[in-house]
């Protein structure tokens, strides 16, 4: 659907671009306040232990130390993101009686500088009674396994079930059935800015926090829960944030201890987690054991799919419950399964907490699903694109009882990718191209957080000079929401992008927004912003109509600062003049527009979904197993493209992250200890390793989204691991079912294949 936009669809500089390229963007990392102290956190060296005694006396005596706190200085409450379910609120953050993973915090220090604080940590004496620990969920789920949380049977934190049709009956009717097992690894977010916070309690008992966050509202609410305060006595300000990727929307071990210390001292306390703490003691991607059963007819019609998943939960619930649910739902994507069943179990273990990471369970489900589907295609002698075409979702499809998909450009994506593969032609030896298709949500409809607020809200204020202030709780973590939302506001109001100034992520001045996760900002907050701008515009047009004396049959609109009759656009008046008139008409008050959005009656998951198909071309060195990512080409659709430069950036960045998930990123552990907690040892794709990337845009329109837009950014992380796995199989005929697909695994698989052939 093509509409003439004046702002949307333009390749614009990010609204905070000049700050970022001049180094003047201020992050929490840069915040320095008068009278500020520096904090450090003491953490458990044991994966599971009772805390018998904490002696802070020596630390307190160290010159320069102002306060030392432990769990005893807190109210002993437990945080949880699934606030509707108190039994899932299980994390004290500063542990009082028990530690459950290596890195679990037990104390914190505030001192005049970081070095003194670090020295003080060594002086805190903690007496532990180590307990038996369990690290693998398949072990933890056994009867005799150590209990991570009291009263939780078999360490099963939560289980989810999704079902439609009758899979058992359907499997009887299948011509071919495959059963496969997979292991999906963990992954670290590796935000360039680690978790950090400056917490400042005033003598009036109110708390102000500068922090790197994906949701300042969530942090505010969780602080209120943990400190037994009124939300509104807490102000959380999200500065420029150096990345989130799912790691920064729960109260963390920089934010909470900083507040407890500050509460004691009435001074600002800054805690910045070290990179090592970032790797070992913040949340990470959920590792999963996947058991898949897939049934089809001999001509490739998928009849039934059954997925059973056991996830490694780590020590606390966090957002892991959502990952468990979404992986089960997206295991049914992007195909039409008449019969489907999913059973997932999240199992507590004495390891670092597993939670949300870009894709939220869908990179895992897409890797396993797309790998198995390629094997099914091979078994049946069907082309990989063809089998996807035969079963792929289409517009206005209902996932039975679960979701209604309005726009869907999957088939156009398949066509484009098929063309690309044909054009590539004959590949050199040991090269392979693997296909992987995905679909992903534009924000979740669920409210397990139990907010009474609309999911997204925005306020627009038009000032006398025609400049527009946009207030929204949405957090820009680098994904460009400040720019995208400003563009939506400008487009709706009919002004230029430079006329809009956005205030975001500050709970003190912005209406609440659930934050940047689940790829929700463009659709949900975009809708709120569009509605707020429309509200403000309506008020302007009321005055314009009177001012212009237009016949009642005419509609008015504003485009590019020109208030005009829609049918006679040459008849109009300057936006700036109307603003002045409207403000005078309102007794000298700036024009205020309000908008909000909460999805209602949109199924169980999301109001809209984006789709795509990706190929990865690899070149394998069969003698060593090493392979190069030569090219990753993606055909995708995300409805109307609001911020094209932003989407391209999201796609290429997703390839770096998702490619890493497939190729080299891993967190090997030994008895619960992460063995590579540094950027030297945790392998990341750098510029020399990055493949050539190509984007093939498909034009679609999503009725639920602002101007037809929907998500782009998280879904793009889903397909790459599967595409890599499928490509390696095409190149050298071996399949690796556990991530990451390292050269050593490829080498060993090839060696095994050679030995079997003898």
């Amino acid at each position, binding site marked *: 659907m093509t509409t003439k936009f004046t702002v949307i669809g333009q390749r614009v500089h990010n609204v905070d671009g000049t700050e970022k390229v001049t180094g003047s963007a201020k992050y929490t990392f840069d915040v320095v306040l008068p009278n500020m102290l520096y904090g450090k956190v003491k953490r458990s060296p044991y994966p599971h232990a009772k805390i018998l005694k904490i002696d802070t006396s020596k630390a307190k005596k160290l010159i320069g130390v102002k306060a030392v706190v432990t769990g005893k200085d807190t109210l002993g409450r437990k945080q949880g993101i699934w606030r509707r379910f108190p039994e899932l609120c299980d994390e004290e953050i500063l542990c009082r009686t028990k530690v459950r993973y290596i890195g679990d915090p037990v104390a914190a220090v505030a001192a005049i500088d970081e070095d003194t604080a670090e020295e003080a940590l060594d002086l805190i004496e903690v007496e532990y009674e180590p307990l038996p620990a369990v690290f693998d969920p398949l072990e933890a789920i056994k009867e005799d396994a150590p209990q991570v949380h009291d009263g939780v049977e078999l360490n099963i934190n939560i289980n989810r079930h999704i079902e439609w049709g009758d899979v058992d009956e359907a499997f009887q009717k299948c011509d071919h059935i495959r059963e496969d097992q997979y292991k999906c690894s963990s992954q670290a977010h590796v935000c360039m800015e680690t978790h950090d916070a400056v917490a400042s309690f005033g003598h009036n008992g109110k708390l102000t926090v500068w922090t790197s966050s994906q949701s300042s509202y969530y942090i505010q609410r969780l602080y209120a829960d943990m400190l037994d305060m009124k939300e509104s006595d807490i102000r959380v300000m999200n500065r420029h944030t150096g990345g989130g990727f799912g790691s920064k929307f729960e109260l963390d071990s920089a934010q909470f201890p900083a507040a407890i210390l500050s509460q004691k001292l009435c001074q600002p306390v800054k805690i910045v987690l070290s990179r090592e703490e970032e790797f070992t003691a913040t949340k990470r991607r959920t590792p999963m054991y996947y058991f898949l059963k897939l049934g089809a007819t001999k001509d490739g019609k998928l009849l039934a799919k059954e997925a059973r998943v056991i996830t490694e939960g780590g020590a606390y619930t966090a957002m892991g419950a959502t990952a468990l649910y979404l992986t089960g739902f997206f295991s049914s994507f992007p195909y039409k399964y008449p019969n489907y069943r999913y059973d997932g179990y999240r199992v507590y273990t004495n390891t670092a907490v597993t939670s949300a990471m870009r894709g939220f369970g869908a990179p895992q489900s897409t890797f396993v699903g797309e790998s198995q589907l390629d094997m099914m295609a091979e078994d049946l002698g069907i082309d990989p694109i063809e089998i996807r075409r035969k079963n792929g979702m289409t517009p206005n499809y209902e996932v039975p009882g679960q979701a209604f998909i309005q726009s869907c450009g999957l088939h156009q994506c398949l066509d484009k990718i098929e063309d690309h593969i044909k054009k590539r032609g004959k590949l050199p030896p040991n090269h392979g191209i693997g296909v992987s298709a995905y679909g992903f949500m534009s924000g979740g409809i669920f409210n397990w957080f139990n907010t009474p607020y609309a999911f997204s809200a925005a306020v627009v204020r038009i000032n006398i000079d025609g400049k527009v202030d946009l207030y929204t709780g949405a957090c820009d973590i680098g994904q460009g929401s400040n720019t995208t939302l400003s563009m939506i506001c400008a487009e709706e109001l009919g002004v230029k992008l430079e006329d809009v100034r956005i205030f975001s992520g500050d709970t003190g001045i912005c209406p609440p927004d659930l934050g940047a996760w689940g790829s929700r900002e463009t659709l949900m907050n975009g809708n709120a912003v569009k509605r707020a701008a429309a509200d403000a515009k309506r008020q302007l047009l009321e005055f314009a109509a009177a001012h212009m004396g237009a016949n009642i049959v005419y509609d008015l609109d504003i485009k590019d600062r020109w208030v005009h009759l829609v049918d006679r656009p040459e008849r109009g008046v300057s936006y700036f003049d109307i603003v002045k008139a409207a403000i005078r008409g309102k007794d000298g008050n700036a024009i205020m527009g309000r908008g909000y959005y909460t999805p209602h009656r949109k199924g169980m998951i999301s109001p809209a979904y984006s789709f795509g198909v990706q190929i990865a071309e690899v070149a394998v060195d069969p003698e*060593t197993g090493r392979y190069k990512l030569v090219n990753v080409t993606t055909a995708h659709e995300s409805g109307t493209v609001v911020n094209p430069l932003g989407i391209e950036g999201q796609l290429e960045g997703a390839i770096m992250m998702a490619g890493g998930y497939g190729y080299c990123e891993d967190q090997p552990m030994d008895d619960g200890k992460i063995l*590579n907690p540094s950027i030297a040892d945790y392998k990341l794709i750098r510029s*020399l390793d990055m493949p050539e990337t190509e984007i093939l845009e498909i034009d679609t329109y999503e009725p639920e989204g602002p101007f037809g837009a929907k998500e782009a950014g998280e879904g793009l992380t889903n397909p790459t691991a599967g595409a890599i796995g499928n490509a390696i199989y095409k190149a050298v005929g071996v399949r690796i079912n556990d991530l990451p697909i390292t*050269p050593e695994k490829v*080498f060993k698989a090839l060696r095994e294949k050679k030995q079997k052939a003898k």
Partner: protein
Amino acid sequence: MINDFEYLAPKTLKEALALLDKYQDDCKVICGGQSLLVLMRQGLVAPPYMVDIKGLNELSYIKDEKDGLKIGATTTHRTIEKSAVIKKKYPVLAKMETRLASIQTRNWGTIGGNVCHADPAGDPAPVCIALGATFTMTSSKGKRSMPAEDFSLDYFETVLEPGELLTEISLPPVPAKTGTAYTKFNVIESDLATVGVAVTVTLGAGDSCQDIRIALGASAPIPLRTKKAEAVLKGKKITEALLAQAGEAAAAEADPISDIYASDDYRRELIKVLVPRITREAMANARKAK
């Protein structure tokens, strides 16, 4: 957290050696600090005295002399990478540098600092061994030299005595019909070696191996010269079968560890593949050479 230390910045080599004599084990020498500062930030090394030799320009040089190329120990990696004479006469050294860590590291870190750090996964040491390099150490008592392959004793341990500084790396003139090649196997392009292989071959008549040096990185507690593998090829006509045998011999001679990057078994398999591969590349370079 870095400890508080006394900082000393001598202006001449003589001054530096006097300081080392004075403080012995109580001091650490810093030059580029690209390895040392990582250790100090983690509190693994905490010297009361730091002797900074970065300013000793007299130790930073590349001299092309009749009896070979002399590289001062405080010459930066980047200088070596960009040196016209090295690119011409010892191109493998310049090529090795292009994948050593990052440009930032190479701009400040030095070849001397790298080999003295004695990480067996380092790139320069196997290449130096393959090139037949000699390392010269200086103390207030005088100089001593030894072949590069004898310089490391164990992980992060060299023959350097307190009071001694590595001052020069010298490369003998390249004989006729000689070629060297180096590769490191890793997962990320500029990463440390999972396994490194450097080979120098001097060809005789009819593709025969007149002389050969094979050195492995990240395959033992020290950068390892694999003489048994060399013996398989030396003096013989090089065939695919012999190359494979040399690879097997090198893998057997190696003593790699299993760690989170690779198992010892895989490292040995890589050696079996890469020794023949790099020997072939060295032979090709030798054929091209005068």
